[in-house]
């Protein structure tokens, strides 16, 4: 890295842009591939914008699909940054303090994906100003959706401004001043819990949908998020260890592994509790669960997915819990991917879609996303990955430089 003698905001920005774009040929190809996927997504979105949401697989019965499923899942991933912040700042864990910033970058990427998914799902994205306080009408506090808008944007601000401040100080070879940012760090801990609880309340507060109208939904959201989120962060850390000069201590992997195992076990316990409630005394309200796990009236489109998800969930948990390789990155990668995919399916498809089936009038309809919908979703995912990459690159560069300056 070339150190720049010039300082100030403009130098900071230009250096960050330079660092985020510089890299070998492999990196360039990686960026181009992401851009290509985003381009395809954009083309599909333009089509959706012109013709309406009719090009998706959603209907008046299953009125939320892939977009909202992914939104829900990535809110969890965003919230999971807290699982690094709590040990780093409250338990004063030195190892995890080193990688807290990576967790925050992942959170920012996840939040951007969330906001994009919401926009993709809207029928009138141009009318979004109707929701802005002041010029529009904001149905607060009655609508949980308005709460979600507030907490998501607030969390995005917290998670981008705190690391920005720290990095800005480090860039200028200064230690950040504690009282200037620590209150926001502690606030972000509460806030992380609130974004995920609020998103859960979005579903939990609807008596129309007995599958969601369940007090365990919020806590289970948190537990699964605190398993899946650190799994994502672990994947990112393995990639960093593999391809960058930034030192990632093996202890960090052990600690994240422990967090994942505890959360995953709690998640499985709650899942078991829900399954027991639904099937021990089968009521009218258990039809959605029946649809999800065993199929209903000959409609079985989710059955293979949910059992795959449960399989991957248990597999991932076991792989993390009994690690014979003692922190081999490849082994951990497999475990992280299987747990992540398991929770992604379980929480995405397995949570949102059965809520709509059967409909309030008892009708059973399958939902299959269309190619367009999948391409748009992939485009958003690619955007998220790109954002995370472009944030982490300069962040690591600044941290390395700062460490070198200190020693």
């Amino acid at each position: 890295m070339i150190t720049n003698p010039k300082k100030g905001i403009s130098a900071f920005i230009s250096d960050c842009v330079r660092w985020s774009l510089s890299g070998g040929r492999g990196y360039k190809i990686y960026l181009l591939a992401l851009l290509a996927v985003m381009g395809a997504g954009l083309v599909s979105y333009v089509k959706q914008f012109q013709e309406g949401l009719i090009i998706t697989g959603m209907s008046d019965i299953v009125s939320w699909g892939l977009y909202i499923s992914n939104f829900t899942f990535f809110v969890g991933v965003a919230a999971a940054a807290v699982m690094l912040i709590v040990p780093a700042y409250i338990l004063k864990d030195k190892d995890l303090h080193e990688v807290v910033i990576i967790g925050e970058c992942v959170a920012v990427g996840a939040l951007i994906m969330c906001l994009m998914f919401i926009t993709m799902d809207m029928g009138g994205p141009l009318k979004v100003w109707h929701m802005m306080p002041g010029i529009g009408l904001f149905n607060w506090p009655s609508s949980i959706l308005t709460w979600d808008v507030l907490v998501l944007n607030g969390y995005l601000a917290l998670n981008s401004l705190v690391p920005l401040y720290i990095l800005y100080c480090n860039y200028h070879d200064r230690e950040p001043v504690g009282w200037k940012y620590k209150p926001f760090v502690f606030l972000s801990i509460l806030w992380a819990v609130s974004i995920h609880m609020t998103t859960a309340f979005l579903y939990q507060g609807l008596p129309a949908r007995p599958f969601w109208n369940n007090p365990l939904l919020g806590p289970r959201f948190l537990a699964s998020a605190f398993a899946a989120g650190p799994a994502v962060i672990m994947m990112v850390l393995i990639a960093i260890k593999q391809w960058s000069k930034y030192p990632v201590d093996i202890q960090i992997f052990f600690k994240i592994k422990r967090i994942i195992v505890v959360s995953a076990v709690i998640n499985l316990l709650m899942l078991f509790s829900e399954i027991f409630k639904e099937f021990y005394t089968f009521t009218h309200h258990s039809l959605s669960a029946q649809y999800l796990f065993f199929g209903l009236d000959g409609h079985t489109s989710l059955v293979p997915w949910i059992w795959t998800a449960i399989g991957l969930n248990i597999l991932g948990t076991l792989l993390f819990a009994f690690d014979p390789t003692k922190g081999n990155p490849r082994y951990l990668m497999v475990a992280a991917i299987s747990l992540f995919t398991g929770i992604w399916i379980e929480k995405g498809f397995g949570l949102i879609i059965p809520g709509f089936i059967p409909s309030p009038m008892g009708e059973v309809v399958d939902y299959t996303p269309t190619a367009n919908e999948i391409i748009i979703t992939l485009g958003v995912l690619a955007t998220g990955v790109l954002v995370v990459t472009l944030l982490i690159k300069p962040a690591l560069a600044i941290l390395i430089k700062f460490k070198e300056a200190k020693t």
Partner: protein
Amino acid sequence: MNSSGKKEDEMKVTDILEKKSTRRSFVKNLSIAAAAGSAGLVTGGCVSLGKSEEMGLKWEEYFKSNYRLMTQEEKDETVARLVRLAKIQNDADIQISNQEPRENVLYGYAFNISRCKGYMDCVEACVKENNLDRKAKTQYIRLFEMDSGQLDPTSGDGKYFHEVPVEGKFYMGVQCFHCENAPCIKACPTKATWREPDGIVVVDYDWCIGCRYCLAACPYWGRRFNWGEPEVPKEEMNTKQHYLGNRMRMKGVMEKCTFCVQRTRQGKLPACAEACPTGSRVFGNLLDPNSEIRYVLKNKKVFRFKEELGTDPKFWYFID
């Protein structure tokens, strides 16, 4: 009870007026910008006059406010723009009313499950009256063919198409129940859907952002979404429209049964009640002790669907 209601209304009015001043100037500035923009287009010379008028109208429409915040003057202006736009775009001559609710009226509905024969004349009349999308075959009303021994429409068959009535079956209609405590209203993030003083739950189509949270919140499946651009053949279009009722919707917004607000505020029965050949549909003013609906509630044993959810619907089922 009455006085507290009045106080609430007064508070709402001041609330609206306060908001009004800031948002009006905002809208005004924008429309000046719009005028400048469209003037630029005209002098550019590459856009025909009709096109630029259409663009200008659409531009002003885009920045208009929520229906509930508009003054009478603004309501009349937007109605005039919509009528003009229908003329330019489809060469259609329509009338859009913005008639206000009447005082001391609260609409209610009762459905006689022992009389309905499942003819579906109500469904057809509703589709025609409310300009429902013919392409997606949107319907507000659903009729369920029910087996004897059950009283929950979710156990019925909503897809029947054979000679009716079938021996041993009965029929049950569902639509929006215009709940007093409507979960959809609570859910809407932009206050694009609300309950009018006469009890009708309406949607401001131009204000709805299409998030479909209300659809998820409704326990009766009373709401429909325009997944694509709705289509109604011009010759079949009902030209007597209401701003909150059967005017043409656009893609990406919610719509729902409005108890035919364009008819009922003129004293007419909703299209479904008028079309019913069996007299199974009773409609009237709940605040009038002499009305038919009040007779039903007083003298018949009635029930409401999913009453345990506390939605307080204004739609009752009764048995002869």
